[in-house]
């Protein structure tokens, strides 16, 4: 029930009357109130009711403590000791104080009390905001720790495992030995292939274990040949991978290529005499894909016009580690420039079958538009390998980075390689990974903001309770 104040003294408020009751007004205010009380019955009634209310409140008893609240040594966190005598002060004996004395330290109790205070702290406030804050913190920690953990794990894995397909960017043809650096060397003869084979056999075995994801292959034989590919000396060829899984071998091949290049260079000198142009063997019948050539790791067959001038020797071996007698691939260059012209000028191999195969290859690639070679007028490397006694020449564009897209391989006669290699499934995974990497910082930022918001709401609920 609200009391309407229509007095002639509107400045006489209940607060002023209350202060008047407590003798907490000035002399001027006191005189005003007394005059208003005498002249206005409403103010008089208001003052009387307030005064009586205060009187009733003051009749409330001062409650007696139901028990003694004196502190024990444990409550005080002190070791028990004799209380000091204070002159003139009588210390009341508290029956609740323990008779027995204990010298146990107060540290466990402090930890208990600390835990209790901590528990009370977290119990306060709204449990909804508290749990939301805790959840957002947990997710944020997961997004922070997990990527770092996986990155470190992948790094360790990369360090422990042989590099069978590193990032082509890390091993670009720009870093590969140039033509000037690598001595030109012809194709290694079969007789000299044994040491090479031994060296290749000593290569990381995991290379053979690394699957070369060239995409779905309809030909099962081609797939088998692909799997067996790592055993061949192709690892020594500075090929340019066009698929993610093929990148590792590139790095290995690139790194190993200088060494391997030197070996054949030293030993295949006599071979160089046989071939003036390393590419003189130019994918002819001898080196046709009819031997079961399986273009390693995204090597695209290049038309002769785009073949680079081979100046660096590469170990050329067939799958069995033996060089065909009719190997016409004298040398393979890693030179990124000028190779096309050299290849173009290269005389075709003496083996007409190889030439025919190469011609077919040209047609196939020109029709399909090899990504690597068609787009690169000057492929840098011609990787040559022999399978089953046949040699095949393919050109790889060293000036361009590895293309993760489909790699077209020349459809060579009796080739076990599919005409077109679909992008490996890992490319989609890489795209997803890249997307996650880009979104990860935003997710972390959002979760941090959510944590802060929930924490503030929870703190407000604790304070406002």
């Amino acid at each position: 029930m609200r009391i309407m104040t229509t007095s002639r003294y509107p400045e006489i408020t209940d607060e002023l009357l209350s202060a008047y009751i407590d003798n907490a007004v000035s002399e001027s205010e006191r005189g005003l109130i007394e005059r208003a009380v005498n002249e206005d019955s409403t103010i008089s009634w208001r003052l009387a009711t307030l005064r009586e209310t205060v009187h009733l409140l003051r009749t409330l008893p001062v409650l007696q403590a139901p028990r003694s609240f004196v502190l024990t040594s444990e409550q005080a966190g002190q070791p028990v000791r004799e209380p000091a005598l204070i002159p003139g002060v009588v210390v009341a004996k508290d029956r609740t104080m323990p008779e027995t004395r204990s010298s146990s330290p107060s540290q466990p109790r402090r930890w208990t009390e600390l835990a209790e205070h901590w528990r009370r702290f977290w119990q306060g406030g709204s449990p909804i905001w508290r749990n939301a804050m805790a959840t957002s913190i947990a997710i944020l920690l997961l997004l922070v720790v997990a990527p770092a953990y996986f990155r470190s794990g992948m790094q360790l894995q990369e360090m422990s495992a042989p590099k069978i397909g590193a990032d082509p960017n890390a091993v670009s043809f720009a870093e590969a030995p140039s033509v000037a650096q690598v001595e030109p060397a012809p194709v290694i003869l079969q007789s000299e292939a044994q040491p090479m084979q031994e060296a290749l056999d000593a290569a990381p075995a995991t290379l053979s274990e690394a699957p070369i994801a060239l995409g779905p292959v309809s030909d099962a034989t081609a797939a088998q040949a692909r799997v067996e590919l790592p055993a061949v000396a192709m690892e020594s060829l500075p090929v340019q991978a066009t698929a993610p899984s093929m990148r590792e071998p590139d790095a290995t091949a690139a790194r190993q290529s200088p060494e391997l290049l030197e070996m054949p260079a030293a030993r295949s000198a006599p071979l160089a005499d046989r071939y003036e142009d390393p590419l003189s063997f130019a994918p002819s019948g001898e080196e046709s894909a009819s031997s079961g050539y399986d273009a390693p790791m995204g090597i695209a067959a290049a038309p002769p016009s785009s073949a680079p001038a081979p100046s660096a020797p590469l170990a050329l071996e067939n799958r069995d580690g033996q060089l065909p007698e009719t190997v016409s691939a004298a040398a393979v260059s890693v030179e990124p420039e000028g190779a096309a012209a050299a290849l173009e000028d290269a005389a075709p191999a003496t083996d007409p079958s190889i030439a025919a195969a190469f011609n077919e290859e040209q047609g196939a690639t020109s029709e399909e538009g090899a990504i690597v070679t068609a787009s690169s007028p000057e492929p840098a490397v011609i990787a040559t390998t022999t399978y089953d006694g046949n040699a095949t020449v393919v050109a790889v564009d060293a000036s361009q980075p590895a293309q993760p897209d489909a790699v077209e391989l020349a459809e060579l006669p009796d080739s076990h390689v599919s005409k077109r290699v679909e992008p490996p499934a890992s490319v989609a995974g890489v795209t997803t990974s890249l997307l996650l990497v880009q979104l990860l910082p935003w997710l972390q930022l959002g979760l941090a903001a959510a944590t802060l918001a929930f924490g503030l709401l929870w703190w407000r609920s604790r304070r406002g309770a």
Partner: protein
Amino acid sequence: MTASKIGEDAVIAQAVAGDLAAFNQLVLTYQNLAYSVAYRTLQDDAAADDVVQESFIKAFRAISTFQGGSFKSWIIRIVANTCYDLLRSRQRRLTDSLDDLVENEDYASYLEDVTANPHAHAERMELSELIERSFASLPTDQRLVLTLCDVHGYSYEEIADMTDVPIGTVKSRINRARTRVRDFLLQHPELLPSAFRP
């Protein structure tokens, strides 16, 4: 300065020095006041018991921070803050505790005046219950200052020191509390003295 005051200063000095026995002497002196304030603020005997015990423990651990002045105000300030902390953590409603209060025989014994006749005693009990209900209807901050001012008779300055709020705020809260109690009591005029009748 009275002898008791001198004696209390000495005890306080000993307590500040870490003497538990001296501090317990102070506990015995102010525990009734502390319990009354806690109980009137919380309207719950069990909660008041916990608050008072915890307040004295806090006071002993922080005794070294006492820099003189009114020890009573210092203790009541700790009790008031502890009451606020408990209310915030528990988020209890005062009306619930009032039922417990009425049914609490221990509390009723505090109000019982064995010298009065039964009829007057019953009226007094009803009026006390009404006053307690009006207390329960107040906000915590108004209830605290009203207890200190009207129940225990402290001045505005002392209340401002105990509650750590400006004097103007104390005046305002006391006025609003008294006005609300008066309005609450006016809803039951049959129990009120004649002064309430216009």
